[in-house]
């Protein structure tokens, strides 16, 4: 039995995951929690948010994020990949910056119109 805090929403339910019984989750208030609990034990993932360089805007950094959670142990590799990106204004929210980043199946997308 593993105890976890669900990080999917700010409610922060205290989950118990039973590894021996098909990752059965208790303590969750919604189905997202059950899914999170199971994944957190078998394949932990995180959405990574950061900024990249941008030129031609009144600000120098443009916020970005992964379009879906990527494997937790790839967070720092992703941060390195972002260092080489430079955008030019204008960019739109949702625009893809790096497609299928590091082969994760997730894209890096812009999160602010700039």
């Amino acid at each position, binding site marked *: 039995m593993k105890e*976890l*805090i*669900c*990080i*999917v*929403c*700010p409610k*922060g339910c*205290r989950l118990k995951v039973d590894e021996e019984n098909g990752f059965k989750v208790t303590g969750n208030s919604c189905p997202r929690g059950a899914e999170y609990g199971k994944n957190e034990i078998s394949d932990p993932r*995180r*959405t*990574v*948010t*950061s*900024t990249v*360089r941008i030129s031609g805007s*009144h*600000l*120098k*950094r443009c*916020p970005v*994020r992964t379009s879906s959670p990527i494997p*937790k142990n790839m*967070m*720092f590799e992703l*941060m390195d990949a972002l260092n080489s990106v430079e955008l030019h204004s204008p960019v739109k*929210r949702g625009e893809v910056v790096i497609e299928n980043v590091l082969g994760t199946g997730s894209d890096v997308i812009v*999160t*602010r*119109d700039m």
Partner: protein
Amino acid sequence: MKYELIVIGGGPAGLAAAVSAYQNGLRRIAIIERDLQAGGILNQCIHNGFGLHRFHEELSGPEYAGRFIDMLPGTSIQLFTDTMGLEITKDKRVHCVSAKQGYQVYEAESIVLAMGCRERTRGAIGIPGDRPSGVFTAGAAQRYLNIEGYMVGRRVLILGSGDIGLIMARRMTLEGAKVLACVEVMPYSCGLSRNIAQCLNDFDIPLYLSHTVTDIRMKNGRLSGCTVSRVDEKRMPVPGTEMDFDCDTLLLSVGLIPENELTRSAGIEIDRRTNGPVVHENMETQMEGVFACGNVVHVHDLVDYVSAESERAGRAAAQYVLNGEASGECITLRNGACVSYTVPQLIRPDNVEKAAEVFFRVNRIFSASRVSVYSNDQLIAQYKREHMAPGEMERIQLPKALLDKADGEITVACEEA
């Protein structure tokens, strides 16, 4: 030109209030925002975790703000950016100043206050020691890093377990800094549990509860180290428990204070428990036709609730302009055992459609517990909770039928089940 509504502050609260007032029939609406763009604090909150209630999607701060900013074109709402609201007067004139327009006075039929919060500083909590560079509030560091693109330090200690500090612990770590520890004077964390899990535990950053910074040292004008000591029940440092941290940066995440200079200048009553204006069920302050919403009223941890509360304020402003003042008997809400405040503080049952939403915070950690609502010592309602903490705002709905039964005052209290 006389506006039907002037909103002061273009963060999520101000945007939602303006859009809702428009949807409820007002046309001459202006938003006054001192920053270059609307969106408020959300523009620097580039992390995800916004909008799950509202949009059923997990968005980052700028994305959440963007959804509201996108609602403005197509309405007649005017957004004045780079414009600072200076004063509001009793006859609802808004004084403001901008580089482009100079000093302006606008007349309004109604006003929504949505100025948000600012951070508590080192001065406000009185940390002893030197005064070097390298000591930042967590939100200021967040702005430097996420908006301006400056890294504020390499070896970081965080004082206070508020959400901004926790978020910055993760952010600085991902950007290559070493975050040594997060130190919290209270015996519990003040931030959301999810942020302890994903910002500290994910990166093995230790959290020292019941500890505080007792000395700050400097070398060549820059922070060179901090001493951290354990504190007793009275929050006094215990001699002999000192730990030294070799750090060049100290981030303070020790709370937010609603920004109410304008509110005070208009003579509107401020609640000492929340540091925000006293409000009614529809977010109207004690001054007729002046409403308030978002962090200026009380510190919210969830922007989704800010939007909901602000829509209520915008709708009420529209009703006030179109139909006149809301009236009726007024119930006073009091905080009973283990509750530090309630918002609203006043409810006019005649003005409640189905139920009044009441927000409050508890002043200690609860496991299985009950929220009890009393009127003149009579228990009139009870709600179960599995877990409550000071860092997490609580919410109950008081049905109209129940309010009609209440006699002049209502007390909200919490106890173990």
